[in-house]
């Protein structure tokens, strides 16, 4: 992988390389939200909180305890998953707007915690994290995540997630333990959040609690909504577009954010279900002439 990275950095401009790495990280993060919100239908607006837990945990472990890169990433993701379980518990009683409020609140608590967290450098942030994350590592991880996501969503467990989104009462009557499934969705989504956070920390050298604020959560949620809730190809497309958009809009200089907002509004008017929200792999397969279709999900 090191050799490949060396070759890639020879031929690709560092600026483009950076954007591609960020796209990879955002795909991992957005797929986590997609699992919780797009597939299972539990609105979460605090994904940056999971991301910061993964980022800080892995950064501190690799800086101060000499953990290897892979181990630090996994530990960060597992830590985030544990918090995912804790935050998943209110979903047993809440849904929709109320759940969104809880997740916003939880993410704020996590942010304020890191603002006052001595080993994390408090408000100054944490600098000098080893830069292990490269183009190859990000994209290898991203491809594994995409593959596992697709597997999961086309399995019995994935169908149970979709069933909860579609009709929770009917799901319970079909012997689905909705409580366990919702917590599982939160756990896996938070795991991906922590994983993305760890990759991010080991790419940026420097992290700061303000990197993981409410706007970051919204930006990530936007990727899923724009791409198409519950759709893996949609989420990937959404992550690509919303990572690229601010860069491409540099041509309009100070009106950048204005155009960014307008782009979102226009896309939502013309594709209210997201860009690929009503395009299923199933439709594509039909177009490619495969007769027997296994599933219409993802």
């Amino acid at each position, binding site marked *: 992988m090191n050799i490949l990275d060396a070759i890639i950095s020879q031929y690709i401009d560092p600026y483009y390389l950076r954007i591609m790495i960020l796209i990879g990280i955002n795909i991992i993060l957005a797929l986590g939200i997609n699992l919780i919100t797009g597939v299972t239908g539990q609105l979460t607006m605090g994904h940056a909180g999971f991301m910061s837990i993964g980022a800080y945990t892995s950064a501190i472990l690799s800086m101060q305890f000499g953990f290897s890169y892979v181990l630090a990433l996994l530990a960060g993701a597992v830590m985030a998953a544990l918090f995912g379980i804790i935050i998943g518990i209110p979903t047993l009683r809440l849904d929709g707007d109320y759940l969104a409020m809880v997740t916003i609140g939880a993410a704020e608590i996590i942010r304020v915690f890191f603002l006052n967290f001595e080993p994390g450098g408090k408000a100054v942030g944490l600098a000098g994290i080893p830069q292990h994350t490269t183009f190859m590592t990000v994209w290898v991880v991203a491809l594994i995540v995409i593959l*596992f996501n697709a*597997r*999961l969503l086309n*399995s*019995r*467990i*994935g*169908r*149970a997630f*979709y*069933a909860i989104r*579609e*009709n929770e*009462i*009917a*799901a*319970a*009557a*079909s*012997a*689905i*333990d*909705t409580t366990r499934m919702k917590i*599982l969705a939160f756990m896996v989504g938070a795991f991906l959040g922590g994983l993305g956070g760890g990759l991010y920390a080991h790419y940026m050298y420097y992290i700061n609690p303000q990197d993981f604020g409410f706007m970051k959560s919204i930006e990530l949620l936007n990727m899923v909504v724009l791409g198409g809730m519950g759709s893996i190809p949609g989420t990937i497309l959404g992550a690509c577009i919303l990572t690229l958009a601010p860069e491409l809009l540099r041509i309009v200089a100070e009106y950048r954010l204005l155009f960014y907002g307008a782009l979102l509004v226009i896309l939502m008017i013309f594709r209210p279900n997201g860009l690929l929200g009503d395009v299923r792999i*199933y439709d594509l397969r039909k177009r490619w002439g495969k007769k027997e*279709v*296994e*599933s*219409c*999900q993802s």
Partner: protein
Amino acid sequence: MPVLSLENISQEFGGLRALDAVNIDVAELAIFGIIGPNGAGKTTLFNIITGFYVPTEGSLIFQGRNVNGVATHSIARLGIARTFQNIRLFNKLSVLDNVRIGCHGVSKCGFFSSLLGLPAMLREEKQIKEEAVRLLALVGLYEKRQEYAENLAYGEQRKLEIARALALKPSLLLLDEPAAGMNTGEKAELMDLIREIRQDMKITILLVEHDMNLVMNICERIAVLDYGRKIAEGSPFEIKSDERVIQSYLGAGA
């Protein structure tokens, strides 16, 4: 021994007594009907049997086991499946997937084997699909298996709910107004289907229905609810001639 016994079941919502000391025994392999005017407590009774409500008083015995307060998904796993009066399908999923989700309770592959695609999981997926296809063929929806559930006609949606309930391999099937919105031809088909389910799949059937023709035709035993009380129980013939039933529900012309 009855498959299902309701013993002195009462249900209160705030000050409202929706069910008042109802006793019903459903014999094995019966087709049992529950009728009564709107608001009599029929659907409440179904919600109690399937664990959505815990009855205020009384006990619920299924196959000799007290299932009071058992969670809905566990009751489903024990073998009670149901359909809903106001159809509850997984609208944005395919017809096939709706039935495959119904198989959830009789399959068992967990998170990690799904993630890794282990051979056991792939084998189970194959079985689930075969079962779903078989059930769709039974209710006559095989051709529509790739449609979104929400795009089906009303009567077809009701049939899909039955297929999804059967996927659970239940020993007791609750049908909440299965014939609502069906035309005469579809109703006749439905009656055949219900008899077939009982005969071939050995499933006891409990149904709530307003269509008297259907109820009197296929039910062997009928209970009548009115204002939360059971006012009569018996064969269709007995019910038709029962004074109180005529007064409160059937009307003088029946």
